[in-house]
């Protein structure tokens, strides 16, 4: 990744982008910048602080951050082994498993939410036993929010990390093993540093997807302030009664995401020396 970036810089300096490509790129930039400019333009700046510090907003923001970080953590814990399985282990039906595990990326989130009901709801395949034996239900709980977010976010980490696992030069790992390192040591000191940029990228993608998650959350976990009402749900509902407050909340969501995307890219993705 680092190498490619440097090549890109060199190429850019020598050969200016052809005019048609530049024009297309500018249209693309405008396409992303204009809606944001629209939000900034319509935002009620004089009242922004009041809306921001309203109890409901802070509660929703806190819940969004907590849930999306949990979803990211779960995505890493389960997603990295899954990516490793998909990248390194030859088995029949691997393509089917991969498709299955990334399906929720393309599934409409509301469908995902309903599917989660059928799996983990009070009458779901697994959920009915949780309810019968432990009197435990996932819908309408904060845990339900984390589950819904993890369901839609984890594939983003899995496909990113799987690609990285495939690019690791296995001879370096073999060399490490031949020199007497344990599998865990080799993974920690050889494989992990190599995939770290991809892991960071995947984790950020998954986190961003979890933070913005709406459809699966409102379907599976419902909407209740303090328990399941994350910031996107709060924005959606206040858009109907108080559009000004919705705009301010939307900008908070954008600001948080923007800071993380800008900050993390420089810090993690562009670190030199991690490539073998």
């Amino acid at each position: 990744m680092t190498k490619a970036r440097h090549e890109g810089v060199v190429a850019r300096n020598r050969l200016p982008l052809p005019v048609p490509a530049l024009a297309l790129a500018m249209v693309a930039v405008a396409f992303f910048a204009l809606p944001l400019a629209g939000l900034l333009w319509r935002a009620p700046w004089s009242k922004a602080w009041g809306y921001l510090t309203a109890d409901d907003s802070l509660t929703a923001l806190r819940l969004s951050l907590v849930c999306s970080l949990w979803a990211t953590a779960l995505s890493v814990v389960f997603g990295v082994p899954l990516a490793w399985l998909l990248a390194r282990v030859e088995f029949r039906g691997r393509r089917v498993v991969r498709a299955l595990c990334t399906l929720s990326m393309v599934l409409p989130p509301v469908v995902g939410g309903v599917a989660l009901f059928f799996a983990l709801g009070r009458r779901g395949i697994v959920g009915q036993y949780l309810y019968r034996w432990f009197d435990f239900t996932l819908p309408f709980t904060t845990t339900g929010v984390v589950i819904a977010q993890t369901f839609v976010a984890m594939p983003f980490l899995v496909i990113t990390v799987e690609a990285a696992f495939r690019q690791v030069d296995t001879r370096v790992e073999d060399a490490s093993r031949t020199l007497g390192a344990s599998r865990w040591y080799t993974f920690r000191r050889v494989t992990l540093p190599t995939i770290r940029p991809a892991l960071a990228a995947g984790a950020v993608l998954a986190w961003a997807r979890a933070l913005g998650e709406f459809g699966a959350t409102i379907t599976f976990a419902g909407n209740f302030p303090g328990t399941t009402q994350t910031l996107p749900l709060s924005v959606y509902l206040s858009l109907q009664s108080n559009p000004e407050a919705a705009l301010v909340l939307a900008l908070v969501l954008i600001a948080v995401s923007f800071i993380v995307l800008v900050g993390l890219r420089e810090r993690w993705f562009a670190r030199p020396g991690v490539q073998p």
Partner: protein
Amino acid sequence: MNSLGRRHLISLVVAGLALVACSSDDPPASDTSTRSAESALTVFAAASLTDAFTEIGNAFMAQYPDTTITFNFAASSELVTQINEGAPADVFASADLSNMSKLTDADNNGSEPVEFATNQGEIIVAPGNPLGIASVADLANDDLIVVVCAPEVPCGKYAAAIFENAGVTVTAKSLEENVKAVVAKVTLGEADAGIVYSTDVRAAADAATGVAIPADINVVAQYPIVVTKDAPNPKGAQAFIDFVTGPQGQQILASYGFTTP
């Protein structure tokens, strides 16, 4: 080569401007450009009208074969926001008066709102009412999973009013974005009870059972309908409203459990 590049650039800029111009006017969901303006009619209607208006739409199109109706069913509050932001609706049918006021206050109506139906609140429970829920007061039981609409949407306001009239405090597990979401949570078995419209209980058929709410604590939802100010097809819009308020429309509404104002 250079002139070719410039020509490309010009055509691109033109295409880009056209794109920008289109995107600012048309919401992606209701692209009317493929049909002639004469025959296309876009109706924005409250989610609780979904089934009745679908049938009314079919009856209308049978009578006016040149017209194609596109419906947008959602919470009234969401629809009025969309119209006030410039969505190309011809007709707006709201599940309450306050969302209609949001439209008329913004001067986005092209006719005076007409009340065409009324509806009542009802408790929706699992088929056969296995938990034996008999009254609004029973919903105060914290062991029950009760879901209602969010206070931002009409059915949520009605639910709050019913609880207040009954003098009970009900802690809902979820405040849903529209009435059909409440129905779904109950018919999927995830919630034990919810407050919806009588028409929704009827529409759910075998999937749910209704528990009536006495008239003295119940609310009457009034449904107004209007032509929007910027209606692309104002004539068709008025014809549709006349149809809804006419005998055939009223009969269809009654068959779905709506009452006459």
